């Protein structure tokens, strides 16, 4: 067998894991190092914010049954509270997909759930209480991106001023601290080059990697002082509104060193790479300027960033949040929080995306997850505890839809408030088929 024989494989195949861990019916846009679910997803785990005066008031991991034919399909079958409210936010599986790491943006606690021993009933495996001291002052553990043997965690803030300057923090799979990589700033570029006059602001948010190109991309949001502030109050605070990230950073994946800083104004949030073997680009959206951005390798092998489409009417500030690329790289779901809409873009020409569909999910919407075959699309509602809408507009849910290529048709809807659970945030799929033991 010749290693070089693998050169012609597609990226998705080349990145498949040895053994039976093969695609092809899984959530897209996660770490390519992870094994994929074969067949139908069986569970969706919803990392849920506790609400004062509701239920046990605690953040919790909620498990919803997705098994076809199950008598409890579409219902909550397990809930595990973690003690208090931590501003539960994002999470990601370890590369072996046996553990689900989640973070609290306020308390900086990291909760690692064992999801392989009993995928229908996750157990709390470990809690990391020392993220801030381990990392040398990073605050707000956000994205959890699996690497072989370790977890790369983006921060949103720092202990010194609770602003947006932050870092990437790496832990090994045992949950032991490994290293901190501070974002480049204008005063300390760490060898990175600013593209087209970009100013490195040191902010952070999301991270994804394109392994065959040995690169990572990070985006930027805002610090603790903003994301813990009441949303309406913040919008009226001119100084606070200046404290949003305007950059994305290209890193060397292997060395964890920043290489380029791009000017991407208006808080670029989620970063998503497609799967195709020749797809040398990524998408992001800007929360405040409501644009779809393409970060791409040009004909000269240089990486560039440019705005390629508007999302809704930018003047209305629809506030794009989560995005999801279909496994065939042809379409992109874009949720916008303020108008509660999801929009589908045709991205077959990534330099010229065009909207082909939209639907109002509810009065607010945040996360979107689609199955690998694109036929099932799930939405959840919460953005941040202090940023969610108020009164009757504060609806909290997990909604499942079937996508037939033309229309989203609702499958089931779980009202998280009616169930006394809280605010539904990030979703991740699970399946017992991943684990034979």
């Amino acid at each position: 067998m010749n290693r070089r024989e693998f050169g012609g494989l597609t990226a998705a195949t080349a990145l498949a894991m040895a053994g039976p861990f093969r695609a092809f019916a899984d959530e897209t846009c996660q770490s390519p190092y992870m094994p994929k679910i074969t067949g139908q997803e069986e569970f969706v785990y919803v990392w849920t914010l506790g609400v004062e005066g509701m239920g046990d008031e605690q953040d919790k991991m909620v498990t919803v049954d997705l098994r076809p034919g199950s008598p409890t399909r579409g219902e909550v079958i397990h809930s595990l509270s973690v003690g208090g409210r931590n501003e539960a936010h994002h999470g990601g599986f370890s590369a072996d997909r046996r553990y689900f790491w989640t973070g609290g943006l306020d308390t900086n606690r990291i909760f690692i759930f064992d999801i392989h021993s009993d995928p229908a009933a996750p157990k709390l495996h470990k809690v990391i209480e020392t993220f801030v001291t381990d990392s040398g002052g990073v605050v707000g553990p956000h994205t959890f991106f699996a690497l072989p043997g370790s977890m790369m965690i983006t921060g949103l803030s720092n202990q010194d001023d609770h602003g947006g300057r932050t870092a990437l923090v790496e832990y090994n799979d045992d949950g032991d601290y490994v290293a901190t990589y501070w974002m480049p700033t204008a005063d300390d570029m760490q060898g990175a080059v600013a593209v087209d006059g970009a100013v490195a602001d040191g902010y952070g948010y999301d991270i994804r990697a394109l392994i065959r190109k040995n690169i990572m991309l990070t985006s930027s949001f805002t610090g603790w002082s903003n994301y813990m502030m009441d949303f309406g109050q913040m919008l009226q605070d001119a100084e606070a509104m200046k404290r949003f990230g305007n950059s994305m950073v290209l890193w060397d994946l292997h060395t964890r060193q920043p290489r380029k800083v791009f000017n991407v104004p208006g808080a670029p949030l989620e970063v998503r790479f497609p799967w195709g073997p020749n797809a040398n680009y990524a998408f992001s959206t800007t929360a405040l300027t409501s644009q779809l951005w393409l970060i791409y390798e040009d004909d000269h092998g240089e990486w560039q960033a440019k705005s390629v489409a508007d999302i809704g009417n930018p003047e209305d500030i629809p506030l794009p949040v989560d995005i999801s690329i279909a496994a065939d790289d042809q379409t992109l779901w874009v949720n916008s929080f303020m108008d509660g809409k999801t929009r589908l873009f045709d991205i077959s020409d990534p330099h010229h995306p065009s909207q082909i569909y939209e639907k109002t999910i509810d009065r607010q919407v945040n996360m979107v997850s689609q199955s690998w075959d694109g036929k099932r699309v799930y939405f959840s509602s919460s953005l941040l505890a202090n940023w969610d809408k108020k009164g009757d507009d504060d609806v909290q849910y997990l909604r499942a839809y079937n996508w037939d290529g033309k229309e989203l048709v609702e499958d089931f809807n779980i009202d998280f408030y009616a169930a006394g659970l809280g605010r539904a945030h990030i979703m991740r799929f699970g399946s017992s088929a991943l684990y034979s033991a």
Partner: protein
Amino acid sequence: MRKIPMAVSVTCAAALLSGVMALAGTWHPADLLARLTPAAMRSPLAPFSAVFPTDPAFQFTPPEPGSYALNRFKPAPNGAVLTTDGSSFQLHDLFDGKITLVSFVYLTCGDVNGCPLAFSTLYDIHDASAQLPGLRDDVQLMTISFDPERDTIEAIAAFSHPVTSDPASALKLDWQVLTTADTASLQPLLDGFGQVVDRGGADDQISHLLRMYLVDRSGMIRNVYGLGLIDPRLLMGDVETLLLEEQGA
């Protein structure tokens, strides 16, 4: 889902590695020498990762050795292992104060993105090391079976034969192929490295994640490689980085 034969054919196991050796290299030693600059030939370290041709699967220029730091992930675990002559050793003793590239495999693995990929990459490195004979004092390769029931001492000995019988083996890196007495003694090693091996089902199936580990002279894991990063240029660039680190570079 792949089924594992209940009995290992040692002949097949040896043939597998023979096949790997026959197919792995598309370059010739003469090509390799042509790649070496005069300055590089004076230093056994600087050109090492550069001797590997660029593979289309790895679409990047590898970072310059020594231009980055390698993290300390955790100590490599210890435990009893068996060598090809049946001797029992503690794994830490076999590290022998060298930088070690560790991989876990099972000899009958037929997944093109699994063990054969590890084999062929290690063979590329092993074969190229003949051009840098001094490196064997500092660096070694190590392969540990995670299927001890089938990968017996006889099986690993047969598997290793093409390496141990290589007339140029004295110039190349040592390549230790190890097994364990049973799965109970293997498990601490798997757990300690973080190598996931999933056994289960009525058909005696084994599945695993492809991983390689770089262990420094002190027994600390300094990098973990998954599919997509099993690039000999990266692996040997990291070895060079450790050697440069030792030199205070």
